[in-house]
Protein backbone atom coordinates (compact mmCIF):
# COMPACT_ATOMS: atom_id res chain seq x y z
CA UNK A 1 0.00 0.00 0.00
CA UNK A 2 1.48 3.41 -0.93
CA UNK A 3 2.55 5.83 1.75
CA UNK A 4 0.02 8.65 1.94
CA UNK A 5 0.12 12.07 3.55
CA UNK A 6 -0.83 10.53 6.89
CA UNK A 7 1.85 7.85 6.95
CA UNK A 8 5.18 8.52 8.59
CA UNK A 9 8.15 8.54 6.23
CA UNK A 10 11.71 9.44 6.99
CA UNK A 11 12.65 12.11 4.46
CA UNK A 12 16.34 12.39 3.63
CA UNK A 13 16.93 15.89 2.25
CA UNK A 14 19.73 16.88 -0.09
CA UNK A 15 20.44 20.07 -2.01
CA UNK A 16 22.23 19.87 -5.36
CA UNK A 17 21.06 23.24 -6.64
CA UNK A 18 24.53 24.80 -6.58
CA UNK A 19 26.44 21.93 -8.14
CA UNK A 20 27.70 21.70 -11.73
CA UNK A 21 26.74 18.70 -13.89
CA UNK A 22 27.44 15.83 -13.47
CA UNK A 23 27.87 16.30 -9.69
CA UNK A 24 24.10 16.38 -8.92
CA UNK A 25 23.63 13.05 -10.68
CA UNK A 26 26.69 11.51 -9.02
CA UNK A 27 25.63 12.61 -5.56
CA UNK A 28 22.00 11.56 -5.97
CA UNK A 29 22.96 8.08 -7.20
CA UNK A 30 25.49 7.69 -4.37
CA UNK A 31 22.95 8.80 -1.75
CA UNK A 32 20.33 6.40 -3.14
CA UNK A 33 22.62 3.46 -2.40
CA UNK A 34 22.66 4.47 1.27
CA UNK A 35 18.88 4.81 1.52
CA UNK A 36 17.38 2.60 4.28
CA UNK A 37 13.94 0.97 4.41
CA UNK A 38 11.23 3.55 5.10
CA UNK A 39 13.36 6.40 3.80
CA UNK A 40 12.60 8.73 0.92
CA UNK A 41 15.11 11.02 -0.79
CA UNK A 42 14.06 14.64 -1.33
CA UNK A 43 16.38 16.46 -3.72
CA UNK A 44 16.33 20.22 -4.19
CA UNK A 45 17.47 21.06 -7.72
CA UNK A 46 17.41 24.20 -9.85
CA UNK A 47 16.13 22.38 -12.96
CA UNK A 48 14.22 19.23 -13.84
CA UNK A 49 16.92 16.57 -14.35
CA UNK A 50 15.46 14.62 -17.28
CA UNK A 51 18.67 12.61 -17.95
CA UNK A 52 18.55 11.32 -14.36
CA UNK A 53 15.15 9.69 -14.69
CA UNK A 54 16.13 6.68 -16.85
CA UNK A 55 18.95 6.00 -14.38
CA UNK A 56 16.48 6.01 -11.49
CA UNK A 57 14.43 3.49 -13.43
CA UNK A 58 17.51 1.32 -13.88
CA UNK A 59 18.24 1.63 -10.16
CA UNK A 60 14.75 0.31 -9.34
CA UNK A 61 13.39 3.63 -8.12
CA UNK A 62 10.38 5.80 -8.78
CA UNK A 63 10.19 9.54 -8.44
CA UNK A 64 7.94 12.55 -8.30
CA UNK A 65 9.12 15.99 -9.39
CA UNK A 66 7.32 19.06 -8.07
CA UNK A 67 8.20 22.50 -9.39
CA UNK A 68 7.93 25.16 -6.71
CA UNK A 69 9.28 28.19 -8.54
CA UNK A 70 11.24 29.11 -11.64
CA UNK A 71 14.41 27.55 -10.29
CA UNK A 72 13.15 25.30 -7.50
CA UNK A 73 12.41 21.65 -8.24
CA UNK A 74 11.86 19.11 -5.49
CA UNK A 75 12.43 15.56 -6.66
CA UNK A 76 11.22 12.78 -4.36
CA UNK A 77 12.84 9.42 -5.00
CA UNK A 78 11.93 6.06 -3.42
CA UNK A 79 12.45 2.34 -4.11
CA UNK A 80 9.96 0.76 -6.47
CA UNK A 81 9.21 -1.86 -3.80
CA UNK A 82 7.93 0.75 -1.30
CA UNK A 83 5.56 3.00 -3.27
CA UNK A 84 4.79 6.54 -2.15
CA UNK A 85 1.64 8.51 -2.88
CA UNK A 86 2.00 11.67 -4.98
CA UNK A 87 -0.18 13.54 -2.46
CA UNK A 88 2.44 12.89 0.20
CA UNK A 89 5.08 14.56 -1.96
CA UNK A 90 2.83 17.51 -2.74
CA UNK A 91 2.03 18.09 0.92
CA UNK A 92 5.68 17.90 1.91
CA UNK A 93 6.74 20.18 -0.98
CA UNK A 94 4.17 22.78 0.06
CA UNK A 95 5.61 22.76 3.59
CA UNK A 96 9.20 22.73 2.38
CA UNK A 97 8.93 25.85 0.23
CA UNK A 98 6.62 27.76 2.60
Amino acid at each position, binding site marked *: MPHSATNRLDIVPMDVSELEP*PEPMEQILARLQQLQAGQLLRVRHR*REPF*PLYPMLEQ*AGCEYCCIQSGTEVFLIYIWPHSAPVDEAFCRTDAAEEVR
Partner: protein
Amino acid sequence: MNLTGLSLDNIPPVDTPLKFFLVAPVFGVLAGILLIGYPELLTNRWLPATLAFTHLLTLGVGTMVMLGALFQVLPVVSNRAVAGDQAIAPWVRRGMVWGTLALTTGFLTSRGWLVGLAALLLASSFGLFVGAFGTGLVRARPAGDTTVTLRLAALSLVATLVLGGMQLSLRLWPEAGLYEPHQTLLHAFVGGFGWVLLLIMGVSFQVIPMFHVAPAFPRWVCRQLPLVIFAANAAVLLAGHPVATFALPLTLVAAILYAAEALKVLMARKRKLVDYTVRFWQLGLSQLITASLLALGLIFTEGDAWRAPVELLLGLVFALGFVLSVMLGMLQKIAPFLIYLHLQRMAMANPQAMMVKLPHMKALIPTERSRWQYRLQLVLLPCIYLAPWAPWMAVIAGLLLVAAFGWLGYCLWGAWRQYQRVESEMTVPL
Protein backbone atom coordinates in the same frame (compact mmCIF):
# COMPACT_ATOMS: atom_id res chain seq x y z
CA MET B 1 4.91 11.80 -11.76
CA ASN B 2 6.65 8.46 -11.95
CA LEU B 3 7.85 6.88 -15.09
CA THR B 4 4.89 7.23 -17.38
CA GLY B 5 5.99 8.06 -20.91
CA LEU B 6 9.62 7.77 -20.00
CA SER B 7 11.86 5.37 -21.78
CA LEU B 8 15.55 4.80 -22.02
CA ASP B 9 15.03 5.00 -25.75
CA ASN B 10 14.42 8.75 -25.33
CA ILE B 11 18.14 9.28 -24.89
CA PRO B 12 19.93 8.40 -28.13
CA PRO B 13 23.13 6.32 -28.11
CA VAL B 14 26.21 8.42 -27.50
CA ASP B 15 27.50 7.92 -31.02
CA THR B 16 24.40 9.62 -32.49
CA PRO B 17 25.55 13.16 -31.60
CA LEU B 18 29.28 12.36 -31.33
CA LYS B 19 29.74 11.11 -34.88
CA PHE B 20 28.45 14.50 -36.10
CA PHE B 21 30.94 16.23 -33.76
CA LEU B 22 33.82 13.99 -34.85
CA VAL B 23 33.39 14.65 -38.56
CA ALA B 24 32.96 18.44 -38.26
CA PRO B 25 36.68 19.28 -37.65
CA VAL B 26 37.57 17.60 -40.96
CA PHE B 27 35.57 20.28 -42.80
CA GLY B 28 37.24 23.00 -40.71
CA VAL B 29 40.66 21.67 -41.74
CA LEU B 30 39.52 21.60 -45.39
CA ALA B 31 38.37 25.23 -45.07
CA GLY B 32 41.81 26.15 -43.69
CA ILE B 33 43.59 24.37 -46.54
CA LEU B 34 41.34 26.14 -49.06
CA LEU B 35 42.18 29.50 -47.49
CA ILE B 36 45.91 28.76 -47.72
CA GLY B 37 45.49 27.81 -51.39
CA TYR B 38 43.29 30.80 -52.28
CA PRO B 39 44.27 33.61 -49.88
CA GLU B 40 42.42 36.14 -52.07
CA LEU B 41 39.09 34.44 -51.31
CA LEU B 42 38.50 36.79 -48.40
CA THR B 43 38.66 39.85 -50.63
CA ASN B 44 35.49 39.17 -52.64
CA ARG B 45 32.42 37.31 -51.45
CA TRP B 46 31.34 36.27 -54.97
CA LEU B 47 34.42 34.18 -55.82
CA PRO B 48 33.74 30.43 -56.23
CA ALA B 49 36.41 29.73 -53.60
CA THR B 50 34.68 32.14 -51.21
CA LEU B 51 31.38 30.30 -51.62
CA ALA B 52 33.16 26.97 -51.09
CA PHE B 53 34.98 28.29 -47.98
CA THR B 54 31.74 29.71 -46.54
CA HIS B 55 29.81 26.47 -47.02
CA LEU B 56 32.61 24.27 -45.68
CA LEU B 57 32.32 26.26 -42.45
CA THR B 58 28.56 26.86 -42.30
CA LEU B 59 27.39 23.42 -43.46
CA GLY B 60 30.38 21.19 -42.79
CA VAL B 61 31.26 22.56 -39.37
CA GLY B 62 28.42 24.70 -38.04
CA THR B 63 25.33 22.83 -39.17
CA MET B 64 27.00 19.45 -38.64
CA VAL B 65 27.64 20.22 -34.96
CA MET B 66 24.22 21.81 -34.50
CA LEU B 67 22.33 18.85 -35.98
CA GLY B 68 24.31 16.41 -33.85
CA ALA B 69 23.64 18.46 -30.73
CA LEU B 70 19.92 18.73 -31.48
CA PHE B 71 19.52 14.94 -31.48
CA GLN B 72 20.56 15.15 -27.82
CA VAL B 73 19.08 18.50 -26.79
CA LEU B 74 15.45 17.57 -27.34
CA PRO B 75 15.44 14.61 -24.89
CA VAL B 76 17.26 16.71 -22.29
CA VAL B 77 14.90 19.69 -22.44
CA SER B 78 11.64 17.89 -23.07
CA ASN B 79 12.19 14.19 -22.37
CA ARG B 80 11.09 13.51 -25.94
CA ALA B 81 13.40 11.94 -28.50
CA VAL B 82 13.79 13.03 -32.10
CA ALA B 83 11.45 10.61 -33.91
CA GLY B 84 13.39 7.61 -35.26
CA ASP B 85 16.68 9.22 -34.26
CA GLN B 86 18.81 6.08 -34.41
CA ALA B 87 17.54 5.15 -37.85
CA ILE B 88 17.79 8.58 -39.46
CA ALA B 89 20.93 10.04 -37.81
CA PRO B 90 23.44 8.09 -39.97
CA TRP B 91 21.57 9.06 -43.15
CA VAL B 92 21.34 12.72 -42.14
CA ARG B 93 25.08 12.70 -41.39
CA ARG B 94 26.05 10.98 -44.64
CA GLY B 95 23.83 13.34 -46.63
CA MET B 96 25.46 16.33 -44.93
CA VAL B 97 29.01 15.02 -45.47
CA TRP B 98 28.64 14.10 -49.13
CA GLY B 99 26.28 16.99 -49.89
CA THR B 100 28.72 19.55 -48.46
CA LEU B 101 31.65 17.99 -50.32
CA ALA B 102 29.68 17.94 -53.59
CA LEU B 103 28.50 21.54 -53.13
CA THR B 104 31.94 22.97 -52.36
CA THR B 105 33.59 20.96 -55.14
CA GLY B 106 30.79 22.08 -57.46
CA PHE B 107 31.47 25.73 -56.57
CA LEU B 108 35.23 25.32 -57.07
CA THR B 109 35.01 23.48 -60.39
CA SER B 110 31.81 25.12 -61.72
CA ARG B 111 30.37 21.68 -62.50
CA GLY B 112 26.59 21.88 -62.57
CA TRP B 113 26.02 18.15 -61.96
CA LEU B 114 27.95 18.35 -58.67
CA VAL B 115 25.79 21.24 -57.53
CA GLY B 116 22.69 19.24 -58.56
CA LEU B 117 23.94 16.21 -56.62
CA ALA B 118 24.62 18.45 -53.62
CA ALA B 119 21.11 19.92 -53.81
CA LEU B 120 19.64 16.41 -53.84
CA LEU B 121 21.76 15.13 -50.95
CA LEU B 122 21.35 18.23 -48.78
CA ALA B 123 17.61 18.48 -49.44
CA SER B 124 17.15 14.81 -48.48
CA SER B 125 19.30 15.19 -45.40
CA PHE B 126 17.63 18.37 -44.16
CA GLY B 127 14.19 17.04 -45.10
CA LEU B 128 14.74 13.94 -42.98
CA PHE B 129 16.05 15.94 -40.06
CA VAL B 130 13.50 18.75 -40.12
CA GLY B 131 10.64 16.22 -40.41
CA ALA B 132 11.81 14.13 -37.47
CA PHE B 133 13.01 16.99 -35.28
CA GLY B 134 9.98 19.11 -36.10
CA THR B 135 7.66 16.28 -35.07
CA GLY B 136 9.47 16.00 -31.73
CA LEU B 137 9.36 19.76 -31.23
CA VAL B 138 5.66 20.00 -31.97
CA ARG B 139 4.87 17.16 -29.56
CA ALA B 140 7.15 18.39 -26.77
CA ARG B 141 5.15 19.21 -23.63
CA PRO B 142 5.35 21.42 -21.74
CA ALA B 143 6.64 23.79 -24.40
CA GLY B 144 9.19 25.76 -22.40
CA ASP B 145 11.10 28.80 -23.63
CA THR B 146 13.85 26.66 -25.14
CA THR B 147 11.36 24.49 -27.04
CA VAL B 148 9.51 27.52 -28.41
CA THR B 149 12.79 29.18 -29.46
CA LEU B 150 13.95 25.96 -31.12
CA ARG B 151 10.67 25.83 -33.06
CA LEU B 152 11.34 29.35 -34.34
CA ALA B 153 14.92 28.33 -35.21
CA ALA B 154 13.61 25.29 -37.15
CA LEU B 155 11.22 27.50 -39.15
CA SER B 156 14.11 29.87 -39.89
CA LEU B 157 16.18 26.89 -41.07
CA VAL B 158 13.42 25.99 -43.52
CA ALA B 159 13.39 29.60 -44.81
CA THR B 160 17.20 29.54 -45.13
CA LEU B 161 17.06 26.28 -47.09
CA VAL B 162 14.35 27.55 -49.43
CA LEU B 163 16.40 30.69 -50.12
CA GLY B 164 19.52 28.54 -50.60
CA GLY B 165 17.63 26.35 -53.06
CA MET B 166 16.60 29.44 -55.01
CA GLN B 167 20.29 30.42 -55.22
CA LEU B 168 21.17 26.99 -56.59
CA SER B 169 18.35 27.23 -59.14
CA LEU B 170 20.50 29.78 -60.98
CA ARG B 171 22.99 26.99 -61.73
CA LEU B 172 20.53 24.11 -62.08
CA TRP B 173 17.43 25.56 -63.70
CA PRO B 174 18.07 29.21 -64.66
CA GLU B 175 14.98 29.45 -66.91
CA ALA B 176 12.75 28.99 -63.83
CA GLY B 177 13.59 32.58 -62.89
CA LEU B 178 13.56 31.84 -59.16
CA TYR B 179 16.82 33.65 -58.45
CA GLU B 180 17.15 37.31 -57.57
CA PRO B 181 20.47 38.81 -56.46
CA HIS B 182 19.18 40.23 -53.16
CA GLN B 183 18.24 36.70 -52.06
CA THR B 184 21.90 35.95 -51.38
CA LEU B 185 21.91 38.54 -48.62
CA LEU B 186 18.56 37.28 -47.28
CA HIS B 187 19.85 33.68 -47.32
CA ALA B 188 22.90 34.72 -45.28
CA PHE B 189 20.88 36.97 -42.96
CA VAL B 190 18.10 34.50 -42.14
CA GLY B 191 20.63 31.67 -41.85
CA GLY B 192 22.77 33.68 -39.44
CA PHE B 193 20.44 35.94 -37.48
CA GLY B 194 17.49 33.51 -37.75
CA TRP B 195 18.38 29.82 -37.66
CA VAL B 196 21.79 30.03 -35.98
CA LEU B 197 21.12 32.89 -33.56
CA LEU B 198 17.74 31.50 -32.42
CA LEU B 199 19.24 28.04 -32.03
CA ILE B 200 22.12 29.33 -29.90
CA MET B 201 19.70 31.45 -27.87
CA GLY B 202 17.33 28.54 -27.23
CA VAL B 203 20.16 26.22 -26.22
CA SER B 204 21.81 28.89 -24.06
CA PHE B 205 18.63 29.39 -22.02
CA GLN B 206 19.16 25.80 -20.85
CA VAL B 207 22.89 25.16 -20.86
CA ILE B 208 24.27 28.38 -19.36
CA PRO B 209 22.22 28.10 -16.14
CA MET B 210 22.67 24.30 -16.12
CA PHE B 211 26.40 23.93 -16.70
CA HIS B 212 27.60 27.10 -15.03
CA VAL B 213 25.29 27.33 -11.99
CA ALA B 214 24.13 30.71 -13.23
CA PRO B 215 20.72 32.32 -12.66
CA ALA B 216 17.98 31.79 -15.22
CA PHE B 217 17.74 34.32 -18.06
CA PRO B 218 15.18 37.10 -17.43
CA ARG B 219 11.73 36.12 -18.70
CA TRP B 220 11.61 38.91 -21.30
CA VAL B 221 14.84 37.62 -22.84
CA CYS B 222 13.55 34.03 -23.08
CA ARG B 223 10.00 34.88 -24.13
CA GLN B 224 9.98 38.16 -26.04
CA LEU B 225 13.40 38.45 -27.72
CA PRO B 226 13.15 35.24 -29.81
CA LEU B 227 9.69 36.30 -30.99
CA VAL B 228 10.93 39.79 -31.85
CA ILE B 229 13.84 38.36 -33.84
CA PHE B 230 11.65 35.85 -35.65
CA ALA B 231 8.94 38.39 -36.45
CA ALA B 232 11.48 40.97 -37.65
CA ASN B 233 13.18 38.39 -39.87
CA ALA B 234 9.80 37.34 -41.28
CA ALA B 235 9.03 41.00 -42.02
CA VAL B 236 12.35 41.34 -43.84
CA LEU B 237 11.57 38.25 -45.90
CA LEU B 238 7.93 38.81 -46.67
CA ALA B 239 7.45 42.53 -46.82
CA GLY B 240 10.31 43.64 -49.00
CA HIS B 241 12.55 46.65 -48.77
CA PRO B 242 10.47 49.40 -47.03
CA VAL B 243 9.74 47.24 -43.98
CA ALA B 244 13.23 45.77 -44.04
CA THR B 245 14.72 49.18 -43.28
CA PHE B 246 12.89 49.07 -39.96
CA ALA B 247 12.90 45.31 -39.26
CA LEU B 248 16.59 44.64 -39.94
CA PRO B 249 17.84 47.03 -37.22
CA LEU B 250 15.24 45.57 -34.85
CA THR B 251 16.76 42.08 -35.22
CA LEU B 252 20.24 43.50 -34.68
CA VAL B 253 19.25 45.46 -31.57
CA ALA B 254 17.52 42.34 -30.19
CA ALA B 255 20.71 40.35 -30.84
CA ILE B 256 22.75 42.94 -28.91
CA LEU B 257 20.27 42.86 -26.01
CA TYR B 258 20.43 39.06 -25.90
CA ALA B 259 24.24 39.06 -25.89
CA ALA B 260 24.38 41.71 -23.14
CA GLU B 261 21.91 39.77 -20.97
CA ALA B 262 23.74 36.48 -21.56
CA LEU B 263 27.01 38.14 -20.47
CA LYS B 264 25.24 39.41 -17.33
CA VAL B 265 23.92 35.93 -16.55
CA LEU B 266 27.43 34.50 -16.96
CA MET B 267 28.86 37.20 -14.69
CA ALA B 268 26.32 36.22 -12.01
CA ARG B 269 27.29 32.52 -12.02
CA LYS B 270 27.92 31.10 -8.58
CA ARG B 271 31.10 29.16 -9.30
CA LYS B 272 33.81 31.49 -10.54
CA LEU B 273 36.35 28.77 -11.37
CA VAL B 274 38.45 28.97 -14.55
CA ASP B 275 36.25 27.42 -17.21
CA TYR B 276 37.09 27.67 -20.89
CA THR B 277 33.49 27.08 -21.94
CA VAL B 278 32.59 30.29 -20.08
CA ARG B 279 35.47 32.14 -21.74
CA PHE B 280 34.38 30.91 -25.16
CA TRP B 281 30.84 32.09 -24.41
CA GLN B 282 32.11 35.51 -23.32
CA LEU B 283 34.29 35.80 -26.42
CA GLY B 284 31.47 34.66 -28.71
CA LEU B 285 28.87 36.99 -27.21
CA SER B 286 31.22 39.96 -27.45
CA GLN B 287 31.66 39.10 -31.14
CA LEU B 288 27.89 38.92 -31.62
CA ILE B 289 27.65 42.48 -30.29
CA THR B 290 30.49 43.53 -32.60
CA ALA B 291 28.87 41.87 -35.64
CA SER B 292 25.50 43.47 -34.89
CA LEU B 293 27.09 46.92 -34.50
CA LEU B 294 28.97 46.44 -37.77
CA ALA B 295 25.72 45.49 -39.52
CA LEU B 296 23.95 48.54 -38.06
CA GLY B 297 26.86 50.68 -39.27
CA LEU B 298 26.49 49.25 -42.77
CA ILE B 299 22.74 49.94 -42.77
CA PHE B 300 23.00 53.53 -41.61
CA THR B 301 26.04 54.69 -43.58
CA GLU B 302 26.61 55.23 -47.25
CA GLY B 303 29.62 54.83 -49.48
CA ASP B 304 30.90 52.06 -51.69
CA ALA B 305 34.67 52.18 -51.56
CA TRP B 306 35.06 50.60 -48.13
CA ARG B 307 31.81 48.58 -48.03
CA ALA B 308 32.89 45.26 -49.63
CA PRO B 309 35.69 44.37 -47.17
CA VAL B 310 33.55 45.49 -44.21
CA GLU B 311 30.74 43.17 -45.38
CA LEU B 312 33.25 40.33 -45.47
CA LEU B 313 34.51 41.31 -42.03
CA LEU B 314 30.92 41.24 -40.73
CA GLY B 315 30.51 37.66 -42.00
CA LEU B 316 33.80 36.61 -40.39
CA VAL B 317 32.98 38.23 -37.04
CA PHE B 318 29.57 36.55 -36.97
CA ALA B 319 30.60 33.10 -38.25
CA LEU B 320 34.03 32.66 -36.69
CA GLY B 321 33.95 35.17 -33.83
CA PHE B 322 30.45 34.43 -32.55
CA VAL B 323 29.26 31.05 -33.83
CA LEU B 324 32.57 29.18 -33.87
CA SER B 325 33.58 30.48 -30.43
CA VAL B 326 30.27 29.40 -28.88
CA MET B 327 30.46 26.05 -30.64
CA LEU B 328 34.03 25.36 -29.53
CA GLY B 329 33.11 26.23 -25.96
CA MET B 330 30.02 24.02 -25.97
CA LEU B 331 31.93 21.07 -27.42
CA GLN B 332 34.45 21.26 -24.56
CA LYS B 333 31.54 20.69 -22.17
CA ILE B 334 28.85 18.76 -24.02
CA ALA B 335 31.00 16.00 -25.57
CA PRO B 336 32.54 14.93 -22.22
CA PHE B 337 29.17 15.29 -20.47
CA LEU B 338 27.42 13.01 -22.95
CA ILE B 339 30.19 10.43 -22.79
CA TYR B 340 30.12 10.50 -19.00
CA LEU B 341 26.32 10.23 -18.93
CA HIS B 342 26.30 7.19 -21.19
CA LEU B 343 29.10 5.43 -19.32
CA GLN B 344 27.24 6.02 -16.07
CA ARG B 345 24.09 4.51 -17.60
CA MET B 346 26.01 1.51 -18.86
CA ALA B 347 27.60 1.02 -15.46
CA MET B 348 24.20 0.99 -13.79
CA ALA B 349 22.69 -1.41 -16.32
CA ASN B 350 25.51 -3.91 -16.07
CA PRO B 351 26.53 -5.11 -12.56
CA GLN B 352 29.95 -6.33 -13.70
CA ALA B 353 30.62 -2.87 -15.08
CA MET B 354 30.49 -1.47 -11.54
CA MET B 355 34.06 -2.78 -11.16
CA VAL B 356 35.29 -0.51 -13.97
CA LYS B 357 36.47 2.94 -12.94
CA LEU B 358 34.68 5.60 -14.94
CA PRO B 359 36.79 8.51 -16.19
CA HIS B 360 35.91 11.84 -14.62
CA MET B 361 34.28 14.32 -17.00
CA LYS B 362 37.32 16.60 -16.86
CA ALA B 363 39.62 13.73 -17.79
CA LEU B 364 37.81 13.28 -21.11
CA ILE B 365 38.90 16.71 -22.41
CA PRO B 366 41.49 17.99 -19.92
CA THR B 367 41.43 21.71 -19.05
CA GLU B 368 44.92 22.15 -20.56
CA ARG B 369 43.62 21.04 -23.97
CA SER B 370 40.65 23.42 -23.72
CA ARG B 371 43.08 26.21 -22.83
CA TRP B 372 45.05 25.60 -26.05
CA GLN B 373 41.83 25.58 -28.05
CA TYR B 374 40.96 28.97 -26.57
CA ARG B 375 44.43 30.39 -27.26
CA LEU B 376 44.27 29.25 -30.88
CA GLN B 377 40.90 30.97 -31.27
CA LEU B 378 42.28 34.18 -29.73
CA VAL B 379 45.10 34.24 -32.29
CA LEU B 380 42.96 33.12 -35.23
CA LEU B 381 40.33 35.86 -34.95
CA PRO B 382 42.51 38.99 -35.38
CA CYS B 383 44.44 37.34 -38.23
CA ILE B 384 41.34 36.38 -40.19
CA TYR B 385 39.66 39.74 -39.47
CA LEU B 386 42.56 41.49 -41.22
CA ALA B 387 42.49 39.16 -44.23
CA PRO B 388 39.91 41.15 -46.30
CA TRP B 389 42.47 44.00 -46.41
CA ALA B 390 45.68 41.93 -46.40
CA PRO B 391 45.49 38.63 -48.33
CA TRP B 392 48.90 37.55 -47.01
CA MET B 393 47.29 37.47 -43.57
CA ALA B 394 44.79 34.94 -44.95
CA VAL B 395 47.61 32.39 -45.30
CA ILE B 396 48.42 32.72 -41.60
CA ALA B 397 44.69 32.55 -40.80
CA GLY B 398 44.39 29.41 -42.95
CA LEU B 399 47.25 27.76 -41.06
CA LEU B 400 45.59 28.73 -37.78
CA LEU B 401 42.26 27.31 -38.97
CA VAL B 402 43.98 24.01 -39.76
CA ALA B 403 45.65 24.07 -36.34
CA ALA B 404 42.43 24.98 -34.48
CA PHE B 405 40.28 22.34 -36.14
CA GLY B 406 43.08 19.77 -36.01
CA TRP B 407 43.30 20.40 -32.27
CA LEU B 408 39.53 20.14 -31.89
CA GLY B 409 39.56 16.81 -33.72
CA TYR B 410 42.41 15.59 -31.51
CA CYS B 411 40.49 16.54 -28.33
CA LEU B 412 37.21 14.97 -29.49
CA TRP B 413 38.83 11.78 -30.80
CA GLY B 414 40.76 11.52 -27.51
CA ALA B 415 37.50 11.63 -25.55
CA TRP B 416 35.86 9.17 -27.95
CA ARG B 417 38.76 6.71 -27.64
CA GLN B 418 38.47 6.83 -23.83
CA TYR B 419 34.76 6.05 -24.17
CA GLN B 420 35.49 3.08 -26.41
CA ARG B 421 38.17 1.76 -24.03
CA VAL B 422 35.93 1.96 -20.96
CA GLU B 423 32.98 0.52 -22.86
CA SER B 424 35.05 -2.49 -23.95
CA GLU B 425 36.27 -3.00 -20.36
CA MET B 426 32.66 -3.02 -19.20
CA THR B 427 31.60 -5.65 -21.70
CA VAL B 428 34.53 -8.07 -21.18
CA PRO B 429 33.11 -11.24 -19.54
CA LEU B 430 34.35 -11.89 -16.00
